[in-house]
């Protein structure tokens, strides 16, 4: 089997690339196609009456973009802001959202068969937003349906009228 055929098979079998990032000790992956860019953290403008994990809004080249701190959303023990703190700018349908993570690790390709369904667990993450669990050697990768997660009503990112 030639290399090209192998490639074809991989793509047709739906192997996808994921951007992985760390929150505290956990490692997460999101569809790379949803990622617009990665930036350093800058202090957002606070927005009143927003949940604590919405840090506020920033100016992204003239567009007002809300910033969600995933560490606060996922109840991490600590959420510090330093010059190494990273914001992943996501492009979800027509909306742009920034998420704060501890660090970005890698971009990796995972074939669907290497994904294991997540067992029913009690978690702060809506189980529907977990696509599955992947493994990279010894480490466990939690793959998120970031679009679903961000558009959930408890995120408070989208108005009730929409």
């Amino acid at each position, binding site marked *: 089997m030639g290399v090209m055929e192998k490639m074809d098979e991989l793509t047709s079998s739906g192997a996808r690339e994921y951007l992985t990032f760390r929150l505290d000790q956990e490692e997460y992956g999101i569809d790379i196609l949803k990622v617009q860019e990665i930036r350093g953290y800058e202090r*957002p*403008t*606070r*927005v*009143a*009456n*927003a949940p604590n994990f919405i840090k*506020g*809004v*920033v*100016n992204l*080249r*003239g*567009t*007002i*973009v*809300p910033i969600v701190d995933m560490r606060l959303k996922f109840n991490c023990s600590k959420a510090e802001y330093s010059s190494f703190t990273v914001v992943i700018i996501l492009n979800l349908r*027509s*909306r*742009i*959202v920034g998420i704060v993570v501890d660090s970005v690790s890698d971009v990796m390709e995972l074939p669907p068969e290497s994904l294991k369904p997540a067992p029913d667990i009690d978690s702060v993450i809506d189980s529907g937003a977990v696509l599955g669990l992947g493994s990279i050697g010894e480490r466990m990768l939690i793959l998120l349906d970031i679009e679903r997660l961000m558009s959930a009503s408890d995120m*408070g*990112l*989208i*108005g*009730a*009228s*929409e």
Partner: protein
Amino acid sequence: MAETHQDSGGGDFDLTQFYQIFFEEAGENLDLMETMLLNLNLETADDEELNGIFRCAHSVKGGAATFGFADVAELTHQMESLLDRLRRHELQPNSAMVDVLLESADASRSLLARHQAGGEGVALPTSDLVRRISELAAGGGGAAAVAKPVAKTAASVQTARVPLKEGVRSLEIRIGPLEHPEQADAIRELFRDIPGLGEIVVMPSDRKDLRIFDVKTVSSNADLLDLFAFHVSRDFIAIKEIEEAEVVVGPGTQAVSSNFADDPQPGAPLAAFPGFGFFDGSPGAPVTAVSAVGAGVDAKVAAKAAPKAGAAGPAAQPEAATIRVAISKVDQLINLVGELVITQAMLAQNSRALDPALYQQLLTGLADLDRNTRDLQESVMSIRMIPMSIVFSRFPRMLRDLASKLGKKVDFVTQGEATELDKGLVEKITDPLTHLVRNSCDHGVEMPAERLAAGKSETGTITLSASHQGGSIVIEVRDDGRGMSREKILSKARERGIDVSDQMSDADVWQLIFAPGFSTAAVVTDVSGRGVGMDVVKRNIAALNGTVEIDSAEGYGMKVSVRLPLTLAIMDGMSVGAGDEVYILPLSSVVESFQVKADAVSTVGQGAQLIKVRDEYMPVIELEKVFQIPRGNSQKSSDIMVVVEADGSRVALLVDELLGQQQVVVKNLESNYRKVPNVSGATILGDGKVALILDTGALVRRSRH
């Protein structure tokens, strides 16, 4: 004679400015109509499509009537009548109708091009088209369908049949043999792009590498050759004059006349451009050139060519003075400049510590950069913003004509012309506003005698006002006419099969007039009364995320308020500080500000705070509490009151400090986030930070509860 119109645009320079807008709009509408007609499926044409085509014709007609282009208005009026019957399903669309409508669209385009060129040249006769449309509208169709074998060439056949006016020559132009015959097609575009050049029709050719065109023009052969030379080498062009009123049918004319092509006349180009004056005094100067041309071309034609070219100067100016650019490109520019300003601010910040003696050149450069960036930002911002007066000034003339046509007396009052509005919004609200003003004049204001009988002054008043209000721009069209009759609307609605009841609230009843095709006017005129107006108004304004409200009292008048969001509108803002945060207040709602002592505030019922400003008590709103602003250990405390007014009420906002006034570009918070209470939008400050813009209307309402 065409020459008499030569400087018709010169005396009224302002109006030509609006002509330009109209020509652009009309062109877009005609293009859109053509696309929709071409996509129209005759068997399954749905209401939406037919309404869409109808609206295009209606818009063109409205504009043409406004600017006094009677020929275009007449033609589009006929088209509209036919389309109106189609969309009411009184007639079944057939291909003959589509053909004639397409032809009419072409004819309208050519008529408009002629007007755009300042009325030069010869108007395309439309009587035949008008007759055919009315035949079709009357339910006929057979005869008209036979009259045109091929839709594409029909226009030429029809124009050829009528005697050509003086000065217009009918030419057969052969181009080829060419390796790439497509090159010749560019010549057709010349005729489309250059107003007043004439008409061109593709004739069938017997050879693949040869193109034959039938051209009607007043330009001289040499002019044409000069123009064509941009696309095709002169050696391949042959121009032959055809007898007037002769209809050229099919291929066959073998004799390729090379007389004109091989005989470039030295004087002719000069005659075409007498304004340059490069060769004044040299042999073959313009005056002599005209007669020199006579050697090869009919002298009459050359004489025509000269004034035509003279008119091309002024006509070309408005075209050259503006370019149409996609709004998205301008937006991109604005965003990029925003980034540049931030980068520049950062550089300025970092260079502050440098020793001026050592880095003099660098610092000078940075100072230049600072100034240039600011100028650039201002220029870029100003691209999009235009004052409402641009829109408003379209109306006095239109109303005057309209009122005299209807035999009414109307005063026109405008307010808030200086309110600046995003160009995109201005373009889009012009049409709805035209409809509203027209409606007010046609249906609202009564005849003088009727007004006197009702105890009103003979002259009605139509007021157009614009203002920033509660995070929106509100444009109102008011008249003191007869208002709307609840009963009439209800009975009309029943007639049209709309489910209504007598118990409906007034507001609901007024909303009925937004239904497509709804009109209470007894007679359909070319002014209004087809009921298309309000339908279009609502649709256009909804597309801008705006709302339309109607208020009316029978016998006293009517008010239509169009409320548009501030998206990208520039606003004068006052920045205020509270804690470490900065908020923007719309300057238009700020009345005054002053420092207060702690004991000046009194409370009512242990809660609501009031402050007495001169003789008035007004509620106090603490910004710190409304926005839950965290207090660090800073010494700051709120002791500045800013009195703001909205919806006719005043409140005093308690803030820490006043930071200054600036123009801000209002950004939409909701495009990526959601609505935030008491906030109308956001803006980007000079340092790149986001600041929220307070919704004073919401704050005032909040104080009432």
